[in-house]
């Protein structure tokens, strides 16, 4: 599907967005932000995204702080999980809701401030230019500010793992900044609630046969983002999770 010619689908009898202004007239772009206890950063993240002219959909994954309230006050649509279920679960909730509310493009965005809203137009341009259904943010083609050497090595190992398991010739993996068309989002059905969902998304993209493209983006590894982000040992948990999913079949 071309981004400039979105699929016409039956409108769900629920919320219909009427953005005040849109960076892409005629195209409903929804920026999905899964958040867990991000009251400190979520306000600024939403402000930056809305400043670019995009609507924010925050899925509060059962935060115990004021994340949802801060997000609502910042102008985002907020959906709350009853209890924390993980980033993957929150992302799938966002995708389901966005599809039910006629979103043409869904952008996934982290709540900890490591992504830059100015990269979103680049992702959308890449979708349009390449007639692709997925635009995957790539920090190695772009910039990774304050990326530690150990994480760099782990991410490189992740890239090779993804290449072997999916056959996709990607050069970055586990990057939460990505855009997908409506058709692309419809093939994503995340069963991994935890961080392994990032690998699962790539796996499902590969199986869908839909076109994808990598886009240079900037990732800021701020002190806050590093503290909130996953530890290096989490990669072991991700590998175990992926293995268990295969055994479950």
């Amino acid at each position, binding site marked *: 599907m071309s981004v400039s010619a979105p699929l016409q689908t039956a409108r769900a*009898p*629920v*919320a*219909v*967005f*009427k*953005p*005040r*202004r849109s960076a892409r007239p005629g195209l409903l772009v929804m920026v999905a932000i899964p958040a867990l206890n991000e009251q400190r950063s979520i306000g600024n993240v939403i402000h930056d995204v809305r400043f670019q002219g995009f*609507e924010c959909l925050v*899925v*509060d994954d059962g935060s115990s702080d004021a994340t*949802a*309230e801060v*997000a*609502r006050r910042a*102008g985002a*649509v*907020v*959906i*709350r*999980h*009853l*209890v924390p*279920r*993980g980033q993957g*679960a929150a992302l*799938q*909730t966002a995708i*389901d*809701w966005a599809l*039910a509310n006629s979103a043409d493009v869904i952008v996934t965005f982290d709540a900890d401030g490591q992504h830059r809203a100015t990269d979103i137009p680049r992702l959308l341009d890449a979708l349009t230019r390449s007639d692709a259904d997925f635009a995957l943010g790539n920090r190695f083609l772009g910039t990774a500010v304050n990326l530690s050497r150990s994480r760099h090595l782990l991410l490189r190992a992740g890239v090779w793992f993804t290449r072997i398991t999916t056959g996709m010739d990607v050069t970055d993996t586990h990057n939460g900044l990505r855009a997908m068309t409506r058709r692309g989002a419809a093939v994503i059905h995340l*069963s991994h*609630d935890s961080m392994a969902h990032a690998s699962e998304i790539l796996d499902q993209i590969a199986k869908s046969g839909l076109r994808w493209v990598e886009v240079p983006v900037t990732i800021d590894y701020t002190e806050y983002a590093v503290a909130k982000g996953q530890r290096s040992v989490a990669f072991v948990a991700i590998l175990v999770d992926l293995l*268990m999913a295969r*055994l*479950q079949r």
Partner: protein
Amino acid sequence: MIGQVVLSVPLTAVLLYGWLQSKRSWVGIAIAVVTLGTLYFVWVPDEAAVTAETLQLGTRYDLLAYLFVGLLLLVQLSVHLKDRQQQQVVTKLIRVIAINGRQVMSRRSGGDEVPVVDGELQSPDLDGSVWDPRRLVTQGAGRNEAE
């Protein structure tokens, strides 16, 4: 003989568990197969000795120990996979509650559209607060107490 009977009782239970699970998962089949093999070696010790020697696993007791450990791991894997399935069901439930709750709030706040005032997107939530599914739990608990 007594020892063989004592070992056979839990093994039969595990065999039954594996058979029941075999309809859902390949792990159940594996459990059933390994359990049958273990039962065989428990009741035919001579064959166990020959097999242990062939596989260079020491004595027949070593072979049985390996089989019991293997069975334990398979049962643990089966339980883990069942738990994983349950967790996925819980996530789906949480998602339905979150999305449907949000939709109900939107409808109550004025039909099928999010209220728009002066072109500004407004929160469709009742009384200006965020839809919080935890209210359902609180309200439900309150009702029960009243009853």
